């Protein structure tokens, strides 16, 4: 089985290398066949591993130790449990869909092979991340997916805005990664190991220990470690205030938005926190922080989605908001619910992105929703799958999103942490906003009047099968995953030992008690019935109605509202001014500081002293050496004699 584990990432890496180095030689068709078959194999193997793990065969071991430093072994190892296996299936499946879709979407792009190389490499990196059994490999995967993300956002590197966006993503992620790295360093310092099992085993003994970051101020060790790790997760999973890069990442090609910036990479933070549950459970402070950050993201980012006009950006803000939901679930210690939502979200959000991409191709790279509308007839498959995706996102039963989201809201309701009050308000209200912007998108794009010019309208047609096939294949899990896995994931302690929850925080356990004694379809029906009666469902339906009223019945009304609430809409249009703040304080401050340092440090000391100085030194030494290196043998011999003489004189203790 170990070979299979090893094979899963490798079958993605090999095509990545071949496509990257020799893609220009082997041609387009060979490249995509290679990449798709590699990822398909990985997907198949992942499913096999998943079934194997369900049968009880877990694995935790080192595959290869590549170094030892300071007594710490640096290893490459795999931890295959249910959590990992779930992630593997999600990652490889979505990746496979995106690979197939790319064949159609990137058809005319000159960087076709490069693109396949990147996405295959991404799949490899992501697999390394989720399969890791130690912090170092986790960090490797973490940085590798970040790198690929950087490369892909700037895939169209001739585009000014793409370059700005990838730089932004890179810098913001650095902030998160710094925290993450510091967290890992603290773990190493206090636990003396980087291995998950060893760290988790000794975590309870170190709980309550203090660490003095500044002399005299003792801070709870676990809180510091988990907050630092969570900062890493905030960067990668785009939580407020490190979320600013995700909307801009939409500059990349749409398959990438689906694969990396919606379905998989951004969920790495969620996965990481779930994986670190034995640590996070030891600090209530951190859990509160996590919940507050999550609820802020969930609600406020959803609001911004209301005013966006770019189809991809709406979906991007929706992603932010949904990541917020997952984070809230993490804060409430409902890790299983978070992973459940992660999985369902991966399917339906990838679906929505790919559907948006399908629309974009049909309209020749028009992304402005104000210039769409009425595409239902032209693109029936896209329309249908987009409806499924939207219903799943909004949380209409029995679509997948309903179960996972409702589980989160229920869990928050049962949580006894201080922040659960705010969180509950945010996630519940968020449902309404989600519903509103989702249906706004759906109505503006597929229904109502067509607002595009004649020519575009006439050319608008359904995308080729390589595009629609993934849509359909993604639509299936978006419908069924919810009720298939609700019971095991939320109620059934599906992840076993992989996720540890302190009894005091065990919200899902309490939730299970409420449905005590019910199993199978009974449980499902009870959950459905409970959900339909609840506020979130009402909000979702209300969102649908309001959206229908505003964007189909009275299309003039939104403009009026927009004007009336000028102040609020301006705030939303400026996305709360995060970008402006960053630009002024961080970028501007850094630039001013840099300018100062440049003038003093660079120009005077480095350029003046070191650079010119070293050039002068080289020139001077060379000139001196040239004098001695004259080509005359007796000069050389004499130099040797002098050397002998110096050694004799210096080192002979007379």
């Amino acid at each position: 089985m170990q070979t299979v584990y090893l094979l899963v990432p490798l079958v993605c890496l090999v095509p990545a290398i071949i496509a990257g180095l020799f893609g220009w030689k082997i041609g387009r068709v060979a490249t995509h066949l290679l990449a798709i078959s590699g990822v398909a194999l990985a997907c198949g193997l992942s499913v096999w591993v998943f079934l194997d793990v369900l049968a009880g065969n877990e694995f935790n071991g080192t595959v290869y130790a590549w170094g030892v430093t300071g007594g710490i072994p640096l290893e490459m190892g795999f931890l295959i449990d249910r959590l990992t296996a779930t992630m593997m299936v999600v990652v490889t499946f979505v990746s496979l869909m995106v690979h197939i879709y790319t064949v159609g979407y990137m058809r005319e792009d000159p960087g076709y092979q490069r693109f396949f190389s990147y996405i295959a490499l991404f799949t490899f990196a992501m697999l390394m991340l989720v399969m890791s059994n130690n912090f170092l490999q986790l960090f490797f995967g973490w940085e590798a997916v970040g790198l690929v993300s950087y490369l892909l956002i700037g895939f169209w590197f001739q585009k000014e805005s793409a370059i700005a966006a990838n730089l932004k993503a890179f810098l913001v992620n650095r902030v998160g990664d710094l925290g993450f790295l510091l967290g890992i360093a603290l773990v190493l310092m206090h636990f003396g190991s980087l291995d998950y099992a060893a760290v988790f085993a000794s975590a309870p003994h170190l709980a309550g220990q203090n660490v003095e970051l500044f002399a005299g101020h003792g801070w709870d060790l676990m809180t510091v470690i988990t907050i630092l790790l969570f900062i890493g997760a905030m960067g990668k999973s785009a939580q407020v205030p490190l979320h600013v890069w995700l909307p801009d990442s939409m500059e990349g090609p749409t398959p990438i938005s689906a694969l990396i910036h919606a379905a998989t990479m951004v969920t790495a933070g969620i996965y990481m926190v779930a994986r670190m549950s034995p640590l996070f459970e030891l600090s209530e402070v951190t859990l509160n922080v996590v919940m507050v950050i999550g609820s802020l993201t969930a609600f406020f980012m959803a609001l911004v989605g209301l005013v966006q006009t770019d189809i991809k950006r709406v979906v991007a803000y929706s992603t932010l908001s949904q990541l917020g939901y997952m984070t809230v679930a993490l804060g409430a210690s409902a890790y299983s619910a978070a992973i459940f939502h992660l999985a369902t979200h991966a399917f339906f959000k990838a679906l929505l992105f790919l559907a948006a991409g399908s629309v974009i191709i049909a309209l020749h790279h028009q992304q402005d929703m104000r210039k769409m509308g009425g595409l239902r007839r032209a693109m029936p498959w896209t329309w249908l799958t987009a409806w499924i995706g939207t219903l799943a996102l909004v949380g209409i039963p029995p679509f997948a999103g309903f179960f996972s989201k409702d589980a989160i809201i229920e869990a928050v309701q049962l949580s006894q942490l201080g922040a659960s009050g705010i969180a509950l308000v945010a996630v519940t209200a968020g449902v309404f906003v989600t519903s509103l912007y989702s249906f706004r998108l759906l109505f503006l794009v597929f229904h109502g009047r067509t607002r595009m010019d004649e020519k575009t309208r006439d050319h608008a047609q359904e995308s080729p099968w390589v595009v629609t096939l993934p849509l359909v294949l993604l639509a299936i899990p978006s419908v069924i995953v919810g009720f298939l896995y609700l019971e095991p994931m939320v109620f059934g302690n599906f992840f076993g030992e992989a996720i540890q929850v302190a009894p005091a925080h065990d919200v899902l356990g309490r939730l299970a008690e409420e449905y005590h004694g019910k199993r199978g379809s009974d449980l499902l029906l009870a959950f459905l019935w409970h959900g339909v009666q609840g506020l979130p469902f009402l909000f979702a339906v209300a969102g649908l109605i309001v959206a229908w009223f505003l964007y189909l019945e009275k299309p003039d009304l939104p403009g009026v509202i927009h004007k009336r609430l000028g102040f609020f809409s301006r705030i939303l249009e400026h996305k709360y001014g995060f970008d402006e703040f960053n630009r002024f304080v961080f970028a501007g401050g850094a630039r001013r500081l840099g300018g100062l340092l440049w003038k003093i440090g660079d120009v005077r000391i480095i350029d003046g002293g070191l650079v010119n100085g070293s050039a002068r030194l080289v020139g001077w030494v060379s000139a001196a050496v040239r004098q001695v290196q004259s080509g005359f043998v007796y000069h050389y011999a004499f130099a040797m004699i002098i050397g002998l003489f110096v050694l004799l004189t210096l080192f002979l203790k007379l």
Partner: protein
Amino acid sequence: MDLQLPIFYFFATILVAAASLVVTLRNPVKAALALVLAFFSAACLWVLLEAEFLGIVLLLVYVGAVMVLFLFVVMMLDINIAQLRSGFGEYLPIGGIVAALMLLEMVLVLGASGFDLQGMPNPAPQPADYSNTRALGMLVYTDYVYPFELAAVVLLVSIVAAIALTLRKRKDTRYQNPAEQMAVRRDDRVRLVKMPSEAKRESGR
């Protein structure tokens, strides 16, 4: 009584003086001759140490063969002495100072105390009929056979090197090949050509 000491100092003085002359004399022929003298004194010192075989070999090989060859070369080549010596005076002061300091250091360091003279006393004098050569041969072909053979390889390499670096096949060198000469037939050398008789032309036309 102990005649050895005065004899040693006598030859040692000659040796040092001759060696100094080798480097200071302006005329290369004279320098070579001074070197012969130095070799000779060294051979005498070896004989004094009862290493008669080595002393004689030194004379035979170096003085008899190498130096004579060397003298021939020096005498046949017209070496511009003035040019060779041009840098000498220029570097003399600094070279001299370094040499003097080195000498001083060596004198200070290399006293008899450093060497284990008590641990290694003089061997007992051998009788007159003791064969130096045989003893050397015994050692060289048994205990020291490996370095001895290596020395042979070094010599082989130097032969190869000397030939490789100097032997040239010149196209313009003339040499006889007796085998070819013997195999010559008349037809190779003489060709009979039939010519029609011509009428005598008028001169001047």
